[in-house]
């Protein structure tokens, strides 16, 4: 059925098929006349059967038969015997049609419809299925129908599981059988069926089973898919967890009115410039959740309860599900020191995409200090432009390390409960790791390397806060580097994965993170100015990751990497200064995550590839003005609709209109000609500096 070469038709075949077409056309004409005149005589119904036997794809004929069945069932002299004979006829016609083409959607659908009339028996249907699955064990129509029959006729999942086992034993290169196995097991887990109560009892057996396939033939992909599913079952905890937050538990936040401050007593990690007297609270979950609101997450600030605090999801799409949620808390300027308590999940309602409830209520508390403004904010101007050049950075001073280390620890939420409860997950992963190391000692196998990398990564992630370092990160990086060489077709995928692992490694320990922390100090002002700058430049990153560890970052240098996307950056709500200089961003829409960074003031996207490619593929994944919500926004703004230049640059308008930038560098992109720059100035009236030139 699969992998058979097509042959050019012989002349006699063509003659036969044209004769068939002739016959079919005659049949069809007659059929349509019956259909249109609503004639359901025996002869007419018989004709439709004949038509379907030749061409099972004739949907109209199937629908006609449905009407005919309804017609017969509504006859006054209808009795159980006649119903049986009518429905039996239908089943027979379907079977004949399937014999002609067992992948006919119409025929399978019609059979489901007949079955919905409460006819046929499970034995009868299973016998039919056996026949078709023997003819082609990977026929997904048959598998779909099988699931339908098993469900509607209440065949037990255990029996069906046994069936997949038999099919797999006959030939383990069967995606459908493995897939159905995962579906059935999921159902049994959900039901907590006898013998399937504990995943730790079932999964090891499944691992053992799939190893047989993977070791026997590592080149066969069907087994790997199932392994990936098992890995997911092992790694993913059912209920969502809070992975990190800003501010961290037990931390001190210093809100300063202007950019220059003397950090003295406070860690530069938690000092934040705030014009408005409000600051963001960021909750970072380990999987996307919905239902974060002022009742599921309560925030107490001093004696005030912020009941009307608005929690917003931070996700690329406009869905109400996200890993990262943000709310802006306003601190009254009179309260110079206050304690904030955030309690998450004490009331039910936070639910993961897979439908599991957040079940580990946690409490964050931190102190907020307000440092009043020393200068009038209107004076902040020219001199404060920031230039992220090498000479302006200093390795972070040693005397400050202690405070950095302290606040670094505060970023991590400890979920001791979940981890002790899942020793079996560790054991399962450790066993898998050992197993795949062995496989790789036998064969050089791409998918084996990828799986080992995934396993090691998962193991590290699971053990992380306790092991205090990612034990396997070097090995994982090496595996991905290897794969990038071995499998050029999927180079970019491996590179992306590698970038994320590299970032996790960099952010995993205090020592490695400190190497990337710099103090910004420009030549103009003599004072030590601004917050710490995290420099992740020149790392060949093609993707950003490890956001949960980077929520505190206000200045980020990602220059000289190979970023094509900055997906996920929206989580870094404190960012005020970002350099994406010398990357591979291809379009303005790639900047979409930045729209959600309300504190961003300085942005460098110079020397990218924006405008190089006339077709912007990200358009298809990003929401565009053509989509409903954004489009209506655009129409409301009449100044915009009347401006032809803006209409032609809708992407620029869409991306930049919400920005609060003071300073933008866009030079070195194809798109950035003078005309475009003038459009930018129009979109962002507050912009003070463009490509190093002051604007008035």
């Amino acid at each position, binding site marked *: 059925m699969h992998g058979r070469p097509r042959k050019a038709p012989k002349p006699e075949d063509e003659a036969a098929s044209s004769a068939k077409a002739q016959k079919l056309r005659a049949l069809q004409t007659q059929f349509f006349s019956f259909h249109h005149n609503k004639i359901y005589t025996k002869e007419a119904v018989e004709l439709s059967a004949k038509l379907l036997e030749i061409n099972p794809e004739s949907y109209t004929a199937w629908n006609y038969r449905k009407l005919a069945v309804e017609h017969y069932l509504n006859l006054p002299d209808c009795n159980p015997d006649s119903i049986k004979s009518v429905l039996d006829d239908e089943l027979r016609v379907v079977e004949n049609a399937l014999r002609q083409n067992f992948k006919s959607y119409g025929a399978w659908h019609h059979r489901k419809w007949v079955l919905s009339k409460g006819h046929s028996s499970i034995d009868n249907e299973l016998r039919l299925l056996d026949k078709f699955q023997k003819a082609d064990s990977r026929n997904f129509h048959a598998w779909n129908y099988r699931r339908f029959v098993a469900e509607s006729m209440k065949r037990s999942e255990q029996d069906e599981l046994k069936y997949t086992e038999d099919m797999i034993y006959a*030939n383990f290169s069967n995606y459908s059988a493995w897939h159905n196995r995962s579906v059935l097991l999921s159902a049994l887990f959900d039901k907590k069926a006898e013998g399937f109560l504990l995943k730790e009892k079932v999964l090891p057996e499944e691992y053992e089973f799939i190893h047989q396939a993977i070791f026997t033939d590592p080149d066969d992909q069907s087994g790997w898919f199932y392994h990936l599913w098992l890995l997911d079952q092992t790694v993913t905890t059912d209920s969502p967890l809070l992975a990190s937050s800003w501010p961290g538990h037990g931390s001190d936040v210093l809100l300063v009115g202007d950019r220059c401050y003397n950090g003295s007593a406070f860690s530069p990690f938690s000092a934040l410039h705030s014009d408005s007297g409000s600051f963001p609270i960021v909750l970072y979950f380990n999987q996307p959740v919905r239902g974060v609101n002022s009742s599921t997450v309560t925030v107490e600030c001093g004696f005030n309860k912020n009941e009307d605090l608005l929690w917003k999801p931070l996700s690329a799409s406009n869905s109400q599900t996200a890993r990262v949620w943000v709310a802006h808390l306003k601190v009254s300027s009179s309260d110079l020191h206050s304690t904030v308590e955030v309690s998450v999940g004490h009331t039910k309602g936070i639910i993961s995409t897979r439908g599991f409830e957040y079940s580990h209520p946690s409490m964050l508390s931190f102190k907020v200090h307000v440092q009043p403004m020393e200068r009038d904010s209107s004076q902040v101007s020219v001199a404060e432009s920031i230039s992220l050049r090498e000479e302006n950075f200093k390795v972070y001073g040693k005397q400050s390390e202690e405070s950095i280390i302290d606040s670094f620890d505060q970023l991590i939420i400890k979920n001791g409960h979940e981890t002790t409860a899942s020793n079996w997950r560790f054991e399962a992963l450790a066993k898998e790791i050992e197993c795949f190391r062995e496989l790789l000692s*036998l064969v050089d196998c791409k998918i084996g390397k990828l799986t080992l990398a995934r396993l090691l990564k998962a193991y590290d992630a699971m053990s992380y806060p306790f092991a205090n370092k990612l034990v396997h990160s070097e090995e994982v990086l090496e595996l991905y580097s290897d794969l990038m060489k071995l499998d050029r077709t999927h180079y970019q995928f491996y590179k992306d994965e590698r970038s994320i692992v590299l970032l996790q490694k960099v952010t995993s320990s205090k020592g490695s993170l400190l190497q990337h922390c710099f103090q910004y100090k420009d030549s103009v002002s003599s004072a030590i100015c601004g917050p710490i700058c995290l420099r992740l430049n020149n790392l060949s990153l093609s993707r950003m990751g490890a956001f949960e560890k980077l929520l505190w970052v206000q200045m980020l240098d990602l220059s000289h990497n190979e970023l094509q996307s900055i997906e996920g950056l929206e989580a870094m709500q404190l960012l005020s200064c970002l350099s994406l200089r010398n990357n591979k961003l291809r379009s303005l829409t790639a900047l979409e995550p930045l729209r959600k960074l309300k504190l961003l003031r300085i942005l460098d996207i110079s020397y990218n590839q924006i405008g190089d490619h006339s077709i912007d593929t990200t358009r298809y994944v990003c929401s565009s003005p053509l989509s409903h919500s954004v489009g209506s926004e655009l129409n409301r703004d009449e100044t915009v609709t009347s401006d032809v230049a803006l209409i032609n640059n809708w992407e620029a308008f869409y991306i930049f209109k919400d920005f609060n930038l003071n300073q933008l560098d866009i030079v070195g992109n194809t798109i950035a000609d003078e005309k475009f720059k003038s459009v930018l100035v129009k979109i962002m009236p507050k912009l003070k500096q463009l490509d190093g030139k002051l604007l008035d």
Partner: protein
Amino acid sequence: MDDIPPYPPIDPTTFDLIVIGTGLPESIIAAASSTASKSVLHLDPYPFYGSHFSSLPLADLPSFLSSHSTSPSPPRSPSSDDPNEFSLLEFATRPLYSSIDISTFSPNLLDQHSRKFNLDVAGPRVFFCADKSIELLLRTGTNQYMEFKSVDATFVGDNKGNLWSVPDSRAAIFKDKSLGLVEKNKLMRFFKLVQGHLAGEQDIKISEEDLQSPFVDFLNKMGLPPKIKSFILYAIAMADYDQEDTGVCRDLLKTKDGIDQLALYNASIGRFQNASGAFLYPIYGQGELSQAFCRRAAVKGCLYVLRMPVTALLVDKDTGCYKGVRLASGQDIFSQKLILDPTFKVTLPSGSSPPLPLKEKLPFFSLKDDKGKIARGICITKTSLKPDISNFLVVYPPRSLFPEQVTSIRLLQIASNLAVCLPGMFVLYISALCNDDDQGKKLIHAVMNTLLTVPLDSESNAAVQSETAENGSAVQDETSESSSGGPSDSGEEKPTLLWSALYSQELTLGQVDFICSTPMPDGKLNYNDLIDTTFKIFQEIYPGEEFFPETSLENPEGDGDASPET
């Protein structure tokens, strides 16, 4: 043969070819020669077809064996007083079977139903679905005279009575519970290498150097563990001798030959839709094959006379050339060519010049009678060696039963659904190559002791019990739990032996000499080598004739017929 009815005279009295004996090679030659429009007379002293390739009723087997076990009375003095122009050379028979040992433990049951048994004289033997005999059957349409069933599985046995299934396909490797993951990987990669090599894939090629090296060295080079090596060498490539002991190995397999064997095995699996494994077995026994070719010959005009012994050879008095034969009826029949079955020896009259125009013509035939012997055993039991499966092959690789075992021992269990025995019974065929009878007996007994309960004698039930207990304690092993359910699994009795026949057979090769004689059944599992030899003999006697020309294809639906019934 004492009460042979009076012989009717045979007419005509001159043929192109006379064939004596209806063993497989003789029958194929008779069929091929008839197909080539030769007039052929096919004679057999016995009342059944097949000679040393026949399947016999239980009671007839011992007498057949013993009739070939002793040198008969020395030939009477040449009847030089013959009046005509021929001299008579009396036939002498040579002993082909020795150490015949028949044991009956259930006399009543078996004697009454002797005719319900069809016991192969030359067992164990199977057809590989893609081997030369199947090709020949299909090509000649002879398959229409036979029906087959699939042999369901192959196992490798050990000295603890376990039977390990042979992972001979991708699905079997996946399913196998006795192989470790690493072993599975190595085995499958080896199969893929062989498949790639056979398919002529560019980047998967076994080097010429490797192909010429011993197969066992190549398997070592591939890093295959001992267990898998043993599976491949003895249960798939069906090597006879210990490949890892060059001192005793007489058939050291080259990689090239090993790969060919694997290719044959691989092509056999799945060739016929109804055959699950690689092997077929004919309903009514292997004797059917010779008989089918005889029928094929008869259709083409070959004349058959059974129960007709031949007493002497007629040779030209002056030239010493072959002229004809004298039958037991006293009639003289003449022919151009003669094919003799290996029973007969012709003693040249002393003094006459050796008229040997063909002598040492072919190096192929020059080595004769130095191939040693083959020990065979036939056992009848009432229970299968393995529950739930009735027809299967077991291989005991060299050294698997005892350290001095230098040849593989093969065992084939055939059940009554192949019409070879009483319903509910099983026939076990065992064979092993050996140097002498004692060695042979030891090999056959080793298997029987491992798998069967052998009553000490037919009366002593107590003895049976103690024997069982003794063996039982010896064979228990933890591994048998995880094995594929060997017969020694706790709680399972070993099948009790009802009847057995043990004998050694000479491995006489065919010879093309003063006259042509055909080979005895060889020690192989299938008929490939015998068919090769037969083809060479045919070419020798009819150099210009085609061996079953393609046009003789009469049954284009052959494939369907050859497949076993469900």
